[in-house]
């Protein structure tokens, strides 16, 4: 098992996508198939952006097991998602005007993450949200 960790800062729009790009590069180097890699890139970017826009910051952990299966954990430190059902509704967003102006906040983030991942788990409370997604390579 190989593990990498990356920090994500609240409202750091300038670095949005940097962690996802690193994750994609790492996985490309170890030979993850292109089709799986593209799905991982979509999910990782969306979750990273969500942490930047909506959370107080947090950490992204990338785990690669011996078979090459990938687990990504996005753990932030709050404030949590008040209504998960709404958050999983396509087009529903609470993004700020600043975020929307930059083209974020389409309300497709969680929808895209769930769609492209093999498993999706979301735990949330006011002290933080943790999303765990997995991708099978075999």
């Amino acid at each position: 098992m190989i593990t990498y960790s990356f920090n994500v800062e609240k409202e750091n729009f300038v670095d949005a996508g940097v962690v996802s790009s690193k994750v994609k590069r790492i996985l490309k180097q170890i030979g993850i198939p292109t089709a799986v890699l593209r799905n991982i890139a979509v999910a990782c970017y969306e979750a990273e952006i969500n942490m930047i826009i909506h959370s107080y910051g947090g950490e992204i952990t990338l785990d690669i097991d011996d078979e090459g299966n990938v687990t990504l954990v996005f753990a932030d430190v709050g404030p949590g998602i008040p209504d998960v059902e709404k958050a999983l509704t396509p087009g529903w967003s609470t993004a700020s005007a600043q975020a929307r102006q930059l083209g974020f906040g389409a309300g497709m983030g969680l929808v895209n993450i769930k769609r492209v991942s093999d498993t999706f788990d979301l735990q949330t409370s006011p002290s933080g949200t943790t999303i765990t997604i997995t991708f099978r390579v075999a």
Partner: protein
Amino acid sequence: MNVEQLATKTGWSLYASDDAKSRDVHGAFVGDLLSWVMGNSCPDQVWLTVQAHLNVIAVACLRDFSCIVFVQGVQPPQETLDKAMEEDLAILTTNLTAYEACCVLHDLGV
């Protein structure tokens, strides 16, 4: 058709490394909402947008676009151009609207 041939045929301004110029172009996608672009586009497409901030480069690279076309006279800031060059991603600019640019791409068989 590759990016360099596209730039020659359209006359659109091109900023690209040699590697980026040789990328093949297959289809096009128009969009300014980044999650919508991430969720619905396909690799190797030309991405037409008016969003020119730094983050579009990350989206384009993660999505494996062949190039970005900034339409309606949008000029990307230098930091966007620098990042694109660093990532071997081609940037084109045109004064055409997204619709007009798509018509041109269609006529070229993209």
